């Protein structure tokens, strides 16, 4: 498969770019909700509009009422979300939770998917336990209780956790904390007794929860996939999240880079456009090359994921790590090249830096994924 978008994908990209550029624009969404101290950190009206565009159920199979598209298409939407810093639960709900729900029972799908597709429901995913991403270790316990389970533990960095109608929780039904086996995924509804949130605003104005599970009682049909064998599904959710976060990161990088390059063509100092200075030209060209390479790795990872390739997981980590490096560079150079104005809240470039920081941490940072590339390569 060639590493560029097909005609259909290019059309979707155009549609997504137009929609996010208008409806998802920074002034209309991010600044609007931030300045009002919105508890969700995003607008439900936009989520509804995204449903009308067909975005919400993009990864859901047609048989389940969705569009049955792939990670390349989801990545196209995410790149535009990133470019416009559009706050939305698309990544957690339509990419990660949808990837989990693909393995749910018919009842589970029937209960959750229609709300997602209609843009009425928002989902979150609870994996991390601690400040750093380490999904190899799951300490949250799920003990058998009657014909269901009883969940006890604590989850961190649950993005949109407090706004979510359902949280996909990775818990341990057997074995020790670091065991590969013995993990099970659960769909935990928002009103489950014992489910608590300490919801906090992050540096990029998004909302994330420290979730407590204090003896949360669930029926057996809350299980997604196999009991004790949830690692396979969890890995799919993780890869979908990694590649999705990489795609959004590319959007952040490109948005920041475009703004910066435009600025270099307008701002005058010493009687010259600053874009005429070789020192800045070379840094801008280096940045362009890093972002393009990161984008190629991301598209490759999306295609491999859609093809069900064995290489998909390695390339997902390559993409997440490479985007982490490239987008980090894009926002840092963006603020620096803007000079003083880049430090002001009024100007958007700083918002890109904040979003990049949050995305860099989400689903594992550069170091986690470079280490994973080494482990998967056998060293």
């Amino acid at each position: 498969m060639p590493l560029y978008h097909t005609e259909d994908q290019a059309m979707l990209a155009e549609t997504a770019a137009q929609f996010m550029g208008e409806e998802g624009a920074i002034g209309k969404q991010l600044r609007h909700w931030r300045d009002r101290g919105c508890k969700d950190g995003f607008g439900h009206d936009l989520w509804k509009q995204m449903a009308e565009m067909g975005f919400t159920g993009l990864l859901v199979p047609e048989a389940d009422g969705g569009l049955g598209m792939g990670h390349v298409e989801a990545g196209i939407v995410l790149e535009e979300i990133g470019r416009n810093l559009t706050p939305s639960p698309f990544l957690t709900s339509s990419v990660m939770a949808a990837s989990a729900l693909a393995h749910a029972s018919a009842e589970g799908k029937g209960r959750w998917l229609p709300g997602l597709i209609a843009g009425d429901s928002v989902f979150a995913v609870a994996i991390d336990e601690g400040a750093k991403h380490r999904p190899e270790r799951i300490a949250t316990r799920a003990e058998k209780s009657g014909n269901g389970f009883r969940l006890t533990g604590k989850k961190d960095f649950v993005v949109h956790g407090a706004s979510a109608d359902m949280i996909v929780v990775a818990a341990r039904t057997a074995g020790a904390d670091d065991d590969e086996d013995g993990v099970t995924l659960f769909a935990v509804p928002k009103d489950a007794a014992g489910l608590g949130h300490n919801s906090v605003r992050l540096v990029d104005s998004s909302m994330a929860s420290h979730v407590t599970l204090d003896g949360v009682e669930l029926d057996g049909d809350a299980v997604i996939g196999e009991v004790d064998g949830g690692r396979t599904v969890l890995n799919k959710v993780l890869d979908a999240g990694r590649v999705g976060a990489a795609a959004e990161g590319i959007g952040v990088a490109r948005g920041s880079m475009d703004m910066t390059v435009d600025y270099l063509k307008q701002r005058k100092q010493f009687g010259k456009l600053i874009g005429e200075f070789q020192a800045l030209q070379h840094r801008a060209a280096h940045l362009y090359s890093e972002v393009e390479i990161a984008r190629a790795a991301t598209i490759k990872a999306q295609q491999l994921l859609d093809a069900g390739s064995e290489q998909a997981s390695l390339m997902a980590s390559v993409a997440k790590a490479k985007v982490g490096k490239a987008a980090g560079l894009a926002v840092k150079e963006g603020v620096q090249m803007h000079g003083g104005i880049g430090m002001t809240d009024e100007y958007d470039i700083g918002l890109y830096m904040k979003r990049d920081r949050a995305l860099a941490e989400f689903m594992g940072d550069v170091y986690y994924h470079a280490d994973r590339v080494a482990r998967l390569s056998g060293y």
Partner: protein
Amino acid sequence: MADLEAFRAETRAWLEANCPPEMRQPVQDESDVYWGGRRATFKNDAQKAWFEACRDKGYTVPAWPKEYGGAGLSPAEAKVLREEMARISARPPLSSFGIWMLGPALLHFGTEGQKKHFLNQIARGEIRWCQGYSEPGSGSDLVSLQTFGEDKGDHWIVNGQKIWTSYADKADWIFCLVRTDKANKYQGITFMLYDMETPGVTTKPILLISGNSPFCETFFDDVKVPKSYGEDIPAQVGEVNRGWDVAKYLLGHEREMISGADGGARTSAIGAAMKRSAGELDPLLRAELAMFDVDALAYACMGEKFLDEIKVGKAHPAQPNMMKYAGTELNKRRHELFMAAGGSTALEWDSEETRGGARAREWLRTKANSIEGGTSEVMLGVVAKRILELPGA
């Protein structure tokens, strides 16, 4: 698609029958590569047999038309051949600047007579070519070149000096940029072809930090270059005074080649191999290898994307500059890591175990990657101006 599968099976069988086992191993040093030319000798019978089989099949230049010595393969078929050759680690049957540089220029700018005459010679490895571009005062600022060809009616008299002419001491002919109009910077250069045995041409190798001397200084002292080598075979490629167009076109090819845009071995991950050869890795070296592998694997994706986009005309014309920049910087990093992982063994300069210090020499050689064919700084300048459209300084 079915045709392509048939072609693959046919190719596989042909390679099985014609590629000797000795030619199915990675190239270790220069003597493993056959460069052709009047004075060429084969290292062994296998190299000779492999070259001749490919020559007769048109596989020294598979994608060139049959009437010019190629096999006339479609891009898809050529890709299958590349893949099948890579599958058995087949060595290239013939390496030459004629194939990589002059050939593409002739295919694009040459007269019918030039194509029939020169392309066939290149495909059959009969003439070894060198490239006369850089001059002592004209490196990255190539267009400032001063070698001058004076018009004498039916011939030119060329005077001047070239530098960094790779393998000029081994070459039979040169494709050379010569100023033919002093008043016009860009439209005053002619792309000429002439014999290195012409009186007045001398060359001298330049010893490099790697201890090797692939490059030469080349001097032209009243060299008489005829304007024509036969009917419809002019000595210049393209029009007189329009050689810069040809040179620019060729630089694009050179940059693609140096960048290793084919996603070849130069851009692969190295951490696992380092662990096998060096044993336990220091944690910080392991971390650097992991960071390198992320960049290398991502760059390989970029190489694939770039080639896919070139095929359908989607790539920006200045994209090879970006590929050249990123690829050569990566290759330098790769060899720094080889040296670090190799430890004191990698320092050995002339031991048999290290094949004469191959690792150290290659490490030093790669430092030229970001200089030859346009420096990294020039590449970044081109990207800034042509892709990002930043204002000219």
